[in-house]
């Protein structure tokens, strides 16, 4: 995808998600974007460039907005009573985080130990 195409797709997504530039900017800021609303507006109109990383943050903000819009139309099935958001609903995220943390973080016992944790200290 060329950079020219990307800003057009983003603006199309913005319109599809029914966001004003201001709304989109808030979502983008909430994800850590550092451009101001004018940067965004200019980029979406193809007038000024935007750093690739900022574009990615913007893309994520747009994707989440589209997903929210889609989710709001979701029809629950009758066989799944009470809009269940119990233990089962949380598990995929837990597993995901577990994998993320497991991959990247040393397990607690591998954390650097204080030198010689002698029980008689003080």
């Amino acid at each position, binding site marked *: 995808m060329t950079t020219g195409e990307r800003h057009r797709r983003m603006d199309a997504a913005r319109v599809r998600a029914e966001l004003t530039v201001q709304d989109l*900017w*808030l*979502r983008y*800021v*909430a*994800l*850590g*974007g*550092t*451009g*101001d*609303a*004018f940067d965004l507006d200019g980029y979406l109109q193809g007038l000024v460039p935007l750093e690739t*990383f900022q574009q*990615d*943050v913007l893309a*994520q903000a747009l994707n*989440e907005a589209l*997903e929210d819009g889609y989710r709001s139309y979701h029809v629950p099935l009758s066989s799944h009573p009470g809009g269940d958001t119990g233990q089962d609903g*949380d598990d*995929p*995220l*837990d597993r*995901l*985080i*577990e994998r*993320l*943390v497991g991959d*990247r*973080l*040393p*397990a*607690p*016992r591998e*954390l650097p*130990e*204080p030198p010689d*944790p002698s029980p008689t*200290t*003080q």
Partner: protein
Amino acid sequence: MTDPDADRPAQAPVEHLTPAAAVDLGTALTQMAGLVLSRETVDTALQLVTTLAATTTAGTLGAAVTVVDEHGKRSRAASNSAVEEADALQYEYDEGPCLAAWRTREVVRIDDTTTDGRWPRWNEAVSRLGVRSVLSAPLLVGDESIGAMKVYCERPRNYGTHDEHVMRLLAAQAAILLANSQSLQEARRLSRQLTDALASRDAVARATGVLLAQGTASEEDAFAVLAAAARQGDRPVLDVARALVATVAARNRAAGARRPRP
């Protein structure tokens, strides 16, 4: 999770770590400049203006105010149901004195709805509701027309040039009040949204920090990791960020419990 007693990732337990926002908030703050501590809302302001219009013009049966915001959304207040119905008919037919006043920015007067030929469909419909004379004034703020206010009477030829003058004066003040109430309401909404956005931004920044501390090469890579996890889990980045920080904190607490500090 390695520790069965570890907390579920319900909340980030490190709320006191609040990184400064590097973002330029100028735009948002400018829009909040009008924020004042007042309980007035658009609705109460509309109600006030409607009552004033009804009491300052003699013989008025009912009064109503319509405000059109920048998104074309209408909010209105009416003093009784006949007025409300007459008002609704204008939008249904897209014709009538208030829409004309709003569009032309001139005071519009109908002396008798049974003989006035300018808005035939609307005139005919409201004359059946008992509305015979109408006076409508635009609400102007600077160059902008933000709506219209109107008074109705069940007698023909109720309003004259003096009433037009009164309505014009009243509309000028009402427009300022309503415009201010609108910007106040907008500022409140923005303030709330901004607070939410900053809370989310903090959470993402903390998760980024955790990933960096654990060896991720750059902030950009850390964001990519969070975004990838969000995509896999079909959850927003914010949820992933909060869960990540909570999990790591819980793990650290568990480690701390096993290894008491000297």
